[in-house]
């Protein structure tokens, strides 16, 4: 069980999984970073992203990757609308209000999907679903590689946007210090709507990508929701780049934990890390405890 080959194999899968986890969590991180709102409907949009990709695949035989990219503008618009109509109105209240409202939205999304598509397990099979690449002694599923590559590409684009465009810099400024950003002439309301749109777009995109690896039902997304939150907490809540670190930590922890315990306890790793990280977290934790750092 602890042979070098096995351990290296686990490392490879962990890295690939981390890529997917990072993309999945970015939406949550952006929304949280800009407006300190915990978007519990992220799971719902993840699930809808998967189902929309299914629709494209069934109607136009569109590859899931193309479907995932197609989701981006659509979900951006949806996110913008959700922000303007729902979230903006509760932002002045205690943060728990926005959390609960988005939770309500998650319930609605889940049950609408249930009504439309039923509760059957869905999956998308492509020409390359069962193909694997041989890499020395290791076999890597093509779908995992593709998901990882696409995730990397998108994050690189995001990095460029955040650092080299006005919108990106305005976003980062708002994350760092909303009051100062306001003083600097940035329309923070517009930025917030933008952030929510981007966050939702990412959720839809990730949902589409995940159809390559998982089958899904309207309940899809619930366990990933908690994992996403674990990831952004681990990575440092204010830190967009930290998402990749958090994703890597979780992916490695999950894969290696199975060596030491029952596989049926796999998800407890994420939950335990979440709770421990929330309580013990270094860095951004000061803001969570109600005091300015």
């Amino acid at each position, binding site marked *: *069980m602890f*042979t070098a*080959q*096995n351990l290296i*194999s*686990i490392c490879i*899968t962990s890295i690939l*999984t981390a890529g997917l986890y990072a993309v999945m969590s970015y939406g949550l991180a952006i929304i949280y970073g800009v407006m300190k709102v915990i978007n519990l409907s992220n799971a719902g949009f993840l699930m809808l992203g998967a189902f929309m990709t299914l629709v494209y695949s069934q109607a136009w035989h569109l590859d899931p990757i193309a479907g995932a990219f197609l989701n981006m503008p659509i979900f951006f618009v949806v996110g913008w609308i959700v922000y303007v109509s729902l979230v903006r109105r509760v932002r002045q209240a205690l943060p728990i209000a926005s959390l609960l409202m988005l939770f309500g939205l998650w319930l609605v999304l889940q049950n609408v999907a*249930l009504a439309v598509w*039923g*509760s*059957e*397990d869905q*999956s998308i*099979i492509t020409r390359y*679903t*069962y193909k*694997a690449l*041989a890499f020395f002694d290791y*076999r890597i*599923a*093509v*779908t*995992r590689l593709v998901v990882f590559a696409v995730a990397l590409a998108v994050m690189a684009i995001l990095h460029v946007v955040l650092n080299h465009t006005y919108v990106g810099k305005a976003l980062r400024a708002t994350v760092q210090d909303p009051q100062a950003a306001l003083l600097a002439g940035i329309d923070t309301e517009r930025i917030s709507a933008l952030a929510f749109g981007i966050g939702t777009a990412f959720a839809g995109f990730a949902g589409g990508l995940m159809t390559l690896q*998982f*089958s899904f*039902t309207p*309940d*899809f997304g619930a*366990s990933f929701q908690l994992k996403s939150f674990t990831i952004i907490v681990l990575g440092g809540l204010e830190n967009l780049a930290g998402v990749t670190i958090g994703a890597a930590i979780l992916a490695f922890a*999950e*894969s290696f*934990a*199975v*060596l030491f315990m*029952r*596989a*049926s*306890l*796999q*998800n407890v790793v994420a939950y335990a890390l979440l709770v421990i990280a929330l309580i013990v977290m270094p860095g951004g934790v000061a803001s969570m405890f109600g005091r300015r750092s």
Partner: protein
Amino acid sequence: MRIRGLARAAVGALVVPVLLVALVTPGRPAAMPEIKIGTVLPLTGAFGSSGGYFKQGYTMAIDDVNKAGGLQVGGQKYHVTLIILDDGSDGTRSRSLVEKLVTDQHVGFLLGGYDTSLVEAQEVVPDQYKIPYVEGGGAASGIFKRGYKYIFGTLATIYNLGKITMEFLTTQIAAGHLPKPLTIAVVWENTDHGKDYVDAVTDAAVQHPDLFRIVLNQSFQLNGSDFSPLLQQVKASNAVAFLSDAHLPDFITMHRQYLQAGLYHQFVSYGARGPDQKGRQALGPGADYLIAGLWWTPALKDPASQLFAERYTREYKAVPDWFQALSFETARALLAGISNAGALDGPKVRDALAHLTLRSMLPGGEIKFGSDGQIKAPYVIVQTTPGNTVRIVWPAHLPETRAVTLPMPRP
């Protein structure tokens, strides 16, 4: 005045359609008494597709009886009404709905739900109200170890599924198709179902240490989404045979990830999974050459099985799995019990069921319940073959049994 006119119009608007509907609907002949049978199935939720199949089987059997003029009980013919409720695959709701059926809808008899965990939640109710309960969806032996008198099951225990899988392996080792000792990696869903299975596998390994060596024994969470860490361990264990006890959604997810990870074993069995239509659609050629132990298969050539398979294909335009056949036979068993009792009295029907011997298309040819209420019936083992076909490979004495292809061909 206008209000009265409106009210009259409203009443008319309601009454007229109702009258029309009542005239047009082919109801049962007036004054034919009815028997109400209730069932709570998972029509949505994790077990939704299987629950749907059970609904088909139950409905087919009850329609048969009604079309033949009703069920003969004592000197009277009765129209049979089936009331189906959906528990959404939730245990608490399942039990509440069964109780509702008894207390609100006053059903006289119950047909069971699908899946061990839901049946175990439901089975508390029948004895309390002395309502006979016949199920074909829960196979774990734990269901029948609680001392209930009104519970009957047409599914042979999962322990036997594991046992005959190991017996089949013994014959294959003896025939030289598989190495000796055979290294086995066994994974099982963390439920009563899985526990039955792994108990049988480990028992066989303990009894025949020269034949079997278990190199991996791991449980996994029901309805999981990512089995890669588990499959990683399976790979690292370097076993020759891979045994897994899983329900349909987990089977599809796990085997897809198995294939993607490039795993290969000479013998692969997912318990009772493999020929399921949904699985074959999702996995394509990846689902070929799997070994499955089944309570029934359309590959059985006896007239009753063939008749059922053809009829199902005609009505539903698909190939039946064991779900539909078992639910059909389960309903038939209950109806036979009621008929044999000659009365609609719960305890009398219960006794009739306890002594029932019913000819059936299930392997073994008959339905007969043991003293704990569970059927004693054999399994057949099949191997899935290319082109969405199956071939029966065990027991040897069946005329339709063919040779098995082992070791599995490499992809």
